[in-house]
């Protein structure tokens, strides 16, 4: 059957079932479904993960993906010999600074490389995808809060709590030292209120802004609520920013800076009065916000846009978002049941929701390394340096971990009407192409260390490596949501077999297997395979997840 008519059929069949339901998915379970689940929940699924998920089936795979993970060891001093508080190879996260800028710089590099390595080492777990979701939801950037100890503490909070309870997460982030600095909560005091955090707490972090209903009234809350809630949050400060004495950074409540007056909320919050509760008052404020059903809907929409698709039709709002939000409330804002229900649903596996997400740059770039089983050097210093050069090459694609553009997060997750399409423009297309061409091509050389995808080893993991047509087809299924068309396979084959008959590929590959150290044979084969992989990675199909 021609591919095109095959899809027409598939789509028509799906239209009959509507596909817009949260009922558990019970259809076909094969490579396509397994890879869809993995592409959306992990960064760069490799062949091993694919095979595990195919064999375990959907339910058991979700158990694995949502399982709690043990905490990763903290980042270490990998290079700087003159830090009196941190010997080489030890962690710096609870150590004061000395006088030099270098003692700060190495920690920032260490933090970023350590974090990238966690993403690269992640196996069958949703943890890194959901951590990035929260990083986008509660954004803080290393340019603004530049003390690496603060940013470590912040990302640790998100990573350790990202699958637990959303309300508890809001409690934690409200008094997190980095957030206190980022949104000026540490300057918010009695007599000098700073409304920055209170505004974003409502507008971006919990309930979202509704349509303007009247002067200063955003349906879900009012300007007055921002002001009053800012008063409720007064008195918190952080301790230890770039400190030469403080070991573990923390936040503290200073009762003298707290506004003890009774705060009057608007009718949007049932005209509730908040009387003084000192250091517990912030929890009361959050509890009040969470009584409103719009909170669950707002977060479910964001989760939907992150895991499924950016367009939320009326049908999706009614049949997916609303029931998901009801579940979120019934489960007292536990995150796992909501994710599980969404990822287990007919709707999630509907053909209309596959392959329609333009990968973000982190997924695209680090994902490639994971897909192709890229191996990092074991030496601490070399490994960190190699991770740094990878991080640098991702920056040009306009998404850097620890550098969300502003408090709204990355535009691709909220900007109507383009959403994910914002990742794509003349600059980023060039940056993506340069990245894949370099890694699949001649590699990056940095400080005499060379990083490159081992393409021969990679294609060796394919089942049908000796048949050029089947090999390319298999690669297509592995990299692309809907594989390759027959014409595309024919065109791509010219890169490994320019005009020659198919059996010549098998002969060349056999010759290499018999004699893997023969440079002539190996180089000849490798050059062709590099051209093939480079070409596939720059195809627009590879930008989709």
């Amino acid at each position, binding site marked *: 059957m021609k*591919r*095109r008519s095959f*899809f*027409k059929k598939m789509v028509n069949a799906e239209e009959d079932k509507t596909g817009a339901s949260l009922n558990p998915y019970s259809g076909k379970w094969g490579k396509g479904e397994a890879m869809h689940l993995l592409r959306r929940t992990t960064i760069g699924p490799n062949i091993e993960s694919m095979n595990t998920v195919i064999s375990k089936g959907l339910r058991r795979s979700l158990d694995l993906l949502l399982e709690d993970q043990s905490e990763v060891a903290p980042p270490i001093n990998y290079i700087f010999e003159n830090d009196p508080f941190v010997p080489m190879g030890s962690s710096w996260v609870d150590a004061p600074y000395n006088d030099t800028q270098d003692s700060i710089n190495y920690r920032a590099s260490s933090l970023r490389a350590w974090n990238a390595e966690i993403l690269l080492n992640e196996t069958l777990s949703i943890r890194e995808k959901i951590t990035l979701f929260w990083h986008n939801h509660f954004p803080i950037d290393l340019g603004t809060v530049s003390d690496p100890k603060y940013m470590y503490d912040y990302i640790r909070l998100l990573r350790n709590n990202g699958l637990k309870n959303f309300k508890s997460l809001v409690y934690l982030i409200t008094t997190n030292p980095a957030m206190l600095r980022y949104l*000026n909560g540490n*300057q918010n*005091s009695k007599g*000098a209120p*700073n409304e920055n955090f209170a*505004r974003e707490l409502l507008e971006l972090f919990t309930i979202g*802004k509704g*349509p*303007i209903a*009247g*002067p*200063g009234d955003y349906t879900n809350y009012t*300007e007055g609520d921002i*002001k009053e809630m800012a008063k409720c949050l007064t008195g918190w400060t952080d301790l230890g920013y770039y400190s030469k004495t403080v070991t573990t950074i923390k936040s503290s409540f200073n009762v003298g800076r707290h506004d003890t007056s009774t705060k009057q909320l608007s009718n949007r919050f049932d005209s509730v009065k908040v009387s003084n509760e000192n250091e517990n008052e912030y929890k009361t404020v959050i509890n009040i916000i969470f009584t409103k059903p719009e909170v669950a809907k707002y977060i479910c929409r964001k989760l939907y846009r992150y895991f499924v698709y950016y367009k939320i039709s009326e049908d999706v709002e009614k049949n997916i978002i609303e029931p998901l939000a009801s579940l979120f409330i019934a489960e007292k804002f536990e995150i796992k049941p909501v994710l599980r229900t969404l990822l287990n649903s007919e709707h999630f596996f509907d*053909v*209309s929701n*596959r*392959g*329609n*997400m*333009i990968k973000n740059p982190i997924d695209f770039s680090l994902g490639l390394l994971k897909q192709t089983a890229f191996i990092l050097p074991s030496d601490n210093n070399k490994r960190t340096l190699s991770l740094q050069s990878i991080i640098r090459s991702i920056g*040009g694609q306009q998404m850097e971990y620890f550098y969300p553009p*502003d*408090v*709204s997060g990355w535009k691709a997750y909220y*900007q*109507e*009407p*383009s959403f*994910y*399409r914002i990742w*794509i*423009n*003349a*600059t*980023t*297309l*060039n940056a993506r*192409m*340069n990245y894949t061409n370099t890694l699949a091509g001649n590699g990056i050389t940095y400080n005499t260390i060379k990083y490159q995808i081992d393409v021969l080893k990679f294609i060796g993991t394919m089942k049908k490596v000796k048949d050029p047509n089947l090999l390319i087809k298999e690669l297509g299924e592995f990299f692309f*949501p*809907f594989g390759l*068309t027959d*014409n*595309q396979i024919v*065109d791509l084959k010219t*890169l490994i077999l320019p005009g020659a008959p198919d059996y010549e590929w098998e002969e060349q590959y056999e010759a290499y297997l018999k004699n893997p150290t023969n440079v002539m044979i190996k180089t000849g084969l490798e050059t062709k395979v590099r*051209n093939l992989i*480079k*070409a596939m990675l*720059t*195809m*627009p*199909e590879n*930008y*989709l997840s």
Partner: protein
Amino acid sequence: MNRRNFIKNTGVHLTIPFLINGLDIFAQPESPFISGMDPFDDKILILIQMNGGNDGLNMVIPIDQYAGLMRVRSNIALPESKVLKLRDNLGLHTKMTGLATLFKEEKLGVLQSVGYPNQNRSHFRSTDIWNSASTSNDYINTGWIGRFLDSRYPGFPEKYPSIEYPDPFALTIGSTVSQTCEGASGNFGIAVNDPKNLKALAENDAENFESISYGEELKYLQNSILQTNAYSKLIQKASEKGKNLATYPTNNSLATQLKSIALLISGGLKSKVYIARIGGFDTHANQTIAADNTTGTHAELLSSLSNAIEAFQKDIELLGVANRVIGMTYSEFGRQIQSNNSGGTDHGNAAPLFLFGTCVQNRITGENVQIPNPIPAQAGVSMQIDFRNIYGSILVDWFGVKESEIKQLIFNDFVKLPIIKNCQTATPVKEVLLPMFVELSPNPTWGPININLQSVGGDCHLHLMNGQGQTIKQQKWNGMFAGEQNLQMDLGDLANGIYFVHIRQGLYHKTMQVVLQR
């Protein structure tokens, strides 16, 4: 020939970077179709977006309000003696020597208290409002430039680049396209970081998945790649052919962006709109260095802005293209009048903006901001000039759009402001936006207000706003007679406090404070 046909005709299904570059057909910038087709065709607009919400009161300073400024923002206020005077009662921040020079050279328009009714203080919502030119309550997915371009170049993006229009319509120096250029079916802009370093991307064509969203996104990617390749060639050519003749400040990202723009213009690129950005204006804390309020974050930003524009203006003059280029600055909102105790300012309402170029009217439009006393909580600067009248006036006087069309493209109540002059024919300066003679009484009032005004004739609009810029009441009198008029308004249903009455009739306007006290 459009691109889709091109692909069909050449039978290219999948192409590889080193095998493909078949779009030479578009690379004919000297096409005879272009020159002299449309008198507005070579006009260029530069938009400078100041991200974060600019503290306009620290940029264009009402010298006659110094007592008020010291009362509400002494911790950040510039010393009066440091203000660069544009006229006796108004001046620029001390670091803006470049723009002060442009004003002396008659190349700078200052528009005071620009905003919109019902101010929204969210960064991204207010940015959307400015970029789309929607009202505060409407959500519009297209940008104001995008709608203008849609009306001129139907069939975008499918039919472009074409032989008549090979150039990108709009260009951002940076990483993301501008929402101002969002058209009904795609963004008219492309974004490039370094115009000298662009490469061809892999192109391919597959129509297999048209019926599912995967197909939609794939098609989007394919179109982006094709367009990027075609446009990249022209941009690269222009950057090789172009030059810069002025010296630009270093360590100034805006200057670097404007330098690239001047290079491309001089190289013959025919994009109509260029967008540059400068970020960091969200100064909630420590916007000045306490020991010296002439320094600090905000001062540095204003210095970068001013120096960059000055260098750019000099460059386009030396390059001989100055009469084709104007520029405009904007920011999503101004900040609150009263500073906070963190040495910063919180999200506010209206703010001044600049127009620059040899073809802009060199004048100050609008009255000085009045500092209310006492200052209402969270008060921002009240709007005097609706930003949509500026957009509309640029489209009419610069891009040749009919005034009647502006009602469709921008908004129904459009009034053209005399902010651009006709460089070619050097017509005498037209009427400015004039202060209106209005008296309010009683003030303070317990409810009723009598408004006595000298009508010039025509539709008269009245907005009553609170300190946060929200419109609380509005009224319109159609075809009011010229001469003295008495209008009444009742504030009896409102809470005690300070309100602002904004009255506008044609080119005349007035914003006044009224105190409600029972």
